[in-house]
C-alpha cells in the first residue's frame, strides 16, 4: 500500500495525487480508445449511451452530490439541449455553434430555475424541480412551431468540419468520449477551485458556509447553471444518438434514471457517476440475456443435478415465462434502488472503496469505518 503525506494545501488539491493514477487512468483511456475497433456494434452503441448518461451523471453529481441540491428535473434540461440542437440544425447552423448554444441556453434556464430554488429546501426543492420538468414536457408537446409537438423531430446526422458523422461510427463515439472526459476533468478542476470548495461547504452546512463568507445564493445558482449546461451538452449528443426526439422521451422516468445513476454509482464521487451510468445502461442487455439464455442455463444446471428431461424442460419454460413478464425491468429497478438505499448507501464505488481498504489494512479492517451516522433533525417543518 501507498502512504500519501499531504504537507501543504497544494498536495491536497492535486489532480493526480500520485503517479499510479496517471498510469491506471491512462491505461483506461487507451482501452476506451481502441474499443470501437474491437467491440461489436451493439456494444459500441451501449458504450455511447454510457458516455452520455455518465456526462449527465457528472452534471447531476455537481448539483446533488456536491452542492446538496436534489433535482428530479434533469430530463427537462436534457430535453432543452436536445431540442435546441434539433431546431438549430434545421437552419444549417454548424455543429460547434449549436452545441455551444444548447449548453449556454440550458445553463441560462438552469440559472433561472436556480433562483426560485434558493428559497426551497429538501423535499420542496424536489417537488419544484418535478413541477418544472412537467411544465417543460408540456411546452415541448404544445409549442408545435418549434418542437413539432408529439410527432417529434427528426435529427440529421451531425456534420463536423464538413464530414458527416453517422451516429454509429467510431468518430461519434470519440466525440461522446471526449465530451465525457472534458466534463470529468473540468469538474475535477472545478472541485479543487474555490467554487467547488464553496459547493461542498454549502452541502455540508449552509449556515457554516455562510458564516465562512460564502455567498450561498450565488453559489447555488452557479451550481444549477453549471449542472444544467453540462446536461444540455449531453442533450445534443443524446439527440444525435437517437436521431429522433419527442416529448415522451423526456419524462419523470428519465429524471429518476439519472438520480439512480448517481445513487447506485455512489453519491459524492465522480467515479460513482460513471459506474452508475454503466449500470443503468447495462440493465437492458442484462434483461435480454435473462430472456434468451438464462432459462437454458438454469435448465442445464437442473439437469446436471439429476432432474429428468421433462422436469428440466418444465423449469426452462417457467423461467422463460418469468423472464418475459412485462414490467420486470421496473421491478428490478425498484428492488435495486431499495437494496442500495438500505444496505449500500455509498453505492458501487463505496463498495469498491471498502474492498480496497479491507485489503490495504488486512488484519486491521474495522467495519465501523464506513458506518453511517444517524442524525435526528428535530423537524424540517420548523426550518
Amino acid at each position: 500500500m501507498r502512504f500519501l503525506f499531504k504537507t501543504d494545501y497544494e498536495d491536497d488539491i492535486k489532480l493526480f495525487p500520485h503517479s499510479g493514477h496517471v498510469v491506471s487512468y491512462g491505461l483506461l483511456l487507451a482501452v476506451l480508445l481502441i474499443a470501437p475497433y474491437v467491440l461489436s456494434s451493439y456494444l459500441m452503441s451501449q458504450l455511447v449511451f454510457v458516455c452520455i448518461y455518465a456526462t449527465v451523471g457528472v452534471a447531476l453529481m455537481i448539483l446533488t452530490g456536491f452542492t446538496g441540491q436534489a433535482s428530479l428535473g434533469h430530463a427537462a434540461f436534457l430535453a432543452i439541449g436536445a431540442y435546441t440542437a434539433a431546431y438549430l440544425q434545421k437552419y444549417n447552423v454548424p455543429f460547434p455553434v449549436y452545441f455551444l448554444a444548447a449548453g449556454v441556453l440550458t445553463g441560462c434556464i438552469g440559472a433561472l430555475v436556480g433562483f426560485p430554488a434558493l428559497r426551497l429546501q429538501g423535499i420542496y426543492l424536489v417537488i419544484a424541480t418535478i413541477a418544472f420538468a412537467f411544465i417543460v414536457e408540456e411546452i415541448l408537446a404544445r409549442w408545435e412551431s418549434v418542437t413539432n409537438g408529439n410527432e417529434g423531430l427528426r435529427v440529421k446526422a451531425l456534420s463536423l468540419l464538413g464530414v458527416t458523422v453517422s451516429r454509429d461510427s467510431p468518430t461519434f463515439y470519440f466525440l461522446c468520449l471526449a465530451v465525457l472526459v472534458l466534463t470529468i476533468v473540468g469538474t475535477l478542476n472545478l472541485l479543487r477551485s474555490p467554487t467547488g470548495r464553496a459547493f461542498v461547504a454549502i452541502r455540508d452546512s449552509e449556515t457554516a458556509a455562510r458564516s465562512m463568507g460564502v455567498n450561498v445564493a450565488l453559489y447555488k445558482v452557479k451550481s444549477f447553471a453549471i449542472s444544467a449546461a453540462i446536461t444540455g451538452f449531453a442533450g445534443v449528443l443524446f439527440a444525435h444518438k437517437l436521431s429522433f426526439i419527442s416529448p415522451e422521451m423526456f419524462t419523470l422516468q428519465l429524471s429518476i434514471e439519472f438520480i439512480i445513476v448517481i445513487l447506485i454509482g455512489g453519491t459524492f464521487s465522480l467515479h460513482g457517476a460513471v459506474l452508475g451510468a454503466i449500470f443503468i445502461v447495462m440493465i437492458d442487455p442484462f434483461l435480454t440475456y435473462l430472456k434468451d439464455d438464462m432459462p437454458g442455463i438454469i435448465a442445464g444446471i437442473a439437469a446436471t443435478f439429476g432432474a429428468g428431461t421433462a422436469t428440466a424442460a418444465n423449469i426452462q419454460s417457467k423461467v422463460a415465462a418469468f423472464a418475459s413478464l412485462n414490467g420486470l425491468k421496473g421491478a428490478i429497478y425498484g428492488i435495486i434502488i431499495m437494496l442500495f438505499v438500505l444496505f449500500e448507501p455509498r453505492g458501487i464505488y463505496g463498495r469498491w472503496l471498502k474492498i480496497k481498504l479491507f485489503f490495504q489494512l488486512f488484519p486491521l479492517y474495522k467495519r465501523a469505518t464506513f458506518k453511517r451516522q444517524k442524525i435526528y433533525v428535530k423537524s424540517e417543518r420548523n426550518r
Partner: protein
Amino acid sequence: MLDFVQQLVSGVALGCVYGLIALGFVLVYKATEVVNFAQGDLMMLGGFFAFTFIGMMGLNYWIGFAGAVAAMALFGMLAERIVVRPILGYPQFSIIMATIGLGYFLRSVAGMIWGTDDFKIETPFSQGVLRIGSLVLAHDKLSVIAATVILCALLWLFFNKTTLGTAMRASSENMLAAYYMGIPVKRVVSIVWAISAAVATCAGVLLAPITFIHSNVGLVLGLKAFPAAVLGGFGSIPGAVVGGVLIGVIESMAGFYLAEGWKDVAPYIVLLAVLLLKPEGLFGLHARKKV
C-alpha cells in the same frame, strides 16, 4: 353558469381524491418527516385489492371495500417495517429514493399480477344521477365528496378524541419527548403508515368508477397530490384536503375554459407560484429556524 357548477362539482370530486392521497402524504410526513413518494402506488394497489375482492371474487361492495382497506393497512405496516424504519434518521434524499424504489416495485408487480389493462369496479353508485333543475350530477362523484367528508370527520375524531390519536400527535410534535413519556413511538409510526395506506385505499376505491384503475394510475395521481399537499402546507391535515380540492377545481376549470394542454400544467404552475410566494402553504406553520 350551469357549466360552471358542473365543472365545479367534478373538480371537487376529483380534488377529493387528490386530497385523500395528499392526506396520506401529510399523515406520514407529520409523524416521521418522511415523504412517501409511493403514496399514489399504495392507492393503486388498494384499488386493485378492491377490484380482486369485488370484481373477481364477487363479494359484496362494502365487504370488499372493508377487506381491501384492512389488507392495505397491513401492507402499509409491512412497508414501513421493511423499507422505511431502517433508514429513519438518514438524510431525506435516501428516504425519497427508497420510497421511489418502492413505488417502482409496486407498479411493476401490479402490472405483472393484474396486467396492464384498465379495470372498473361496479359500485352501488355507478348508475344513478341526481337532477337539480337542469343540473345533472352523477352519483359516483357525489359519493366521492361524501366519503371524503366522512373520512375527514372520522380522522378528526380519531386524532382529537382517542388516546392513540393523542399519542400520534405527541410523537409528531417531538418524537424523543413522546418516547420519554412512555409512548411506543415505533408502534405509533407503524400505525400511522397503516392509516395512511388505508386512506389511500379509500381514495383508490372511490376513484375506480371515475377514472379506471390501471397500474400507472398511482404515478399520475400521486404526482398531482404533491401540489395539493404543498398548497395546503405540507404538515397540515385540513390543508391537504383543501389543497386537493383546490387543485382539482383548478384542473377542471383549466380544462374547460383554457386551451388544450393547460389542464395538465395548471396544477404545477400553481404549485410553483405557491412555492415562490408562500412556501409554507395556506395552512402551514410559519416558523423560522433560530440559529
